[in-house]
């Protein structure tokens, strides 16, 4: 491994000194013109296998400790507050479906969201309002924030666990849409078949 040049060193220092994840533009504002992305690539490789890593979170980059060091560091630290089951499900629905309205969240969960649930997610900084749906009543939509990606260690929303499989299986589509597609795909026989199972079983 060769020593990094001064531009790479500057990116390294700025990222290290930062109090929050930095975009490429904000890094460049400090280190001046140059290939920040290439420098980040070089640094990411340099730190792979070390006790600290460089990671991308959305469009932002930061240093953090290697995940396998968790047990060394957890001591004398408070665990982040535990989310309720309603909170976890609501967060998952927002993350996998965003932007999504409160009514859409409730349709998936089959139960009304209590007022505190969204508040807790917004207070944690993981969820933020994301405009209004242009339908009658113009309901507010919700989406995840950059802090959500940081907290859950996601480079982007595409890294949400299993999101590609869920999408491929149509499990991120509304029931109506999924139902119509089932009818089209299998022109009724599939429906009949799966329900035959339902009927035959005791």
């Amino acid at each position, binding site marked *: 491994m060769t020593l990094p040049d001064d531009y790479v060193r500057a990116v390294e220092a700025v990222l290290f*000194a930062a109090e929050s994840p930095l975009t490429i533009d904000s890094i460049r504002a400090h280190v001046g013109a140059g290939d920040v992305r290439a420098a980040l690539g070089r640094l990411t490789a340099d730190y792979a296998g070390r006790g600290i890593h460089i990671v991308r979170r959305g469009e932002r980059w930061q240093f953090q400790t290697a995940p396998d060091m968790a047990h060394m560091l957890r001591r004398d630290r408070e665990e982040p507050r535990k989310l309720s089951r309603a909170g976890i499900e609501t*967060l998952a629905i927002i993350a996998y479906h965003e932007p999504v309205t409160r009514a859409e969240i409730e349709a998936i969960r*089959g139960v009304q969201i209590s007022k505190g649930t969204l508040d807790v997610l917004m207070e944690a900084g993981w969820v933020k309002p994301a405009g209004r749906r242009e339908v009658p009543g113009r309901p507010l939509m919700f989406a995840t924030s950059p802090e959500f990606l940081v907290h859950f260690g996601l480079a982007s929303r595409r890294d949400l666990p299993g999101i590609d499989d869920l999408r491929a299986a149509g499990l991120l589509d509304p029931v109506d849409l999924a*139902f119509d597609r089932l009818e089209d795909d299998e022109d009724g026989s599939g429906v009949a078949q*799966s329900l035959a199972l339902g009927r035959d079983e005791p």
Partner: protein
Amino acid sequence: MSDAQLTLDLDGWEGPLDLLLSLARGQKVDLRKISILALVEQYLAYVDSARALKLELAADYLVMAAWLAYLKSALLLPRDPLAEPDPEELALRLQLRLERLSAMREAGARLMARDRTGRDVFLRGAPEGLRTVRKAAWQAEIFDLIAAYGRISARMRPVMHVVADREVMTLEAALERVSMLVGERIDWSVIESFLPEAGERLRRSALASSFVAALELARQGKIELRQASPFAPLYLRARA
């Protein structure tokens, strides 16, 4: 799942769909292969047992129970092609909803199991921090500068009040003229006849001065004044 377990967990569910999903999971098969009919029966049994124990059930559990009882009877009856809505469609929709809730529940669990900041990975404890020093780039246009100087000049220039040159007849001149002319008249003469030939501005001044002069001469006992009524013509005559 026994009735006892069900009642023990009475408050553990977040609504009827949650309960249905738990029951469906009890079938230990792919959600796409669950028996909706078996599920319906389990749910109705749960609601019955809760009632038997005289437990208060939230209204939405009872609404779901009524709906499922309807679905059950529709599924069991010979298929009526004209029946609306089609019970098999209803059953499929319920199954799709359960699949979606289940998918999100698993996604939530996987999300929570990730390496989370502050629990599994940690950020730098004492970052130096980055500083942005804002420097003002002062802006001003040449017009602003000139206008500002105009404003100051206008404000500070000594204020001079100029009175336009006006044609006037002084009281002295009027006294002299009226005393002279009134001696030459024998009878009453209207005051306007004592005024000089002049433009309108001088005439107004002359009228005012001549009027004051007439009052002064009358006070001195040199002339007499006569006026029929207010604003009527004013006549002058030398005192005999």
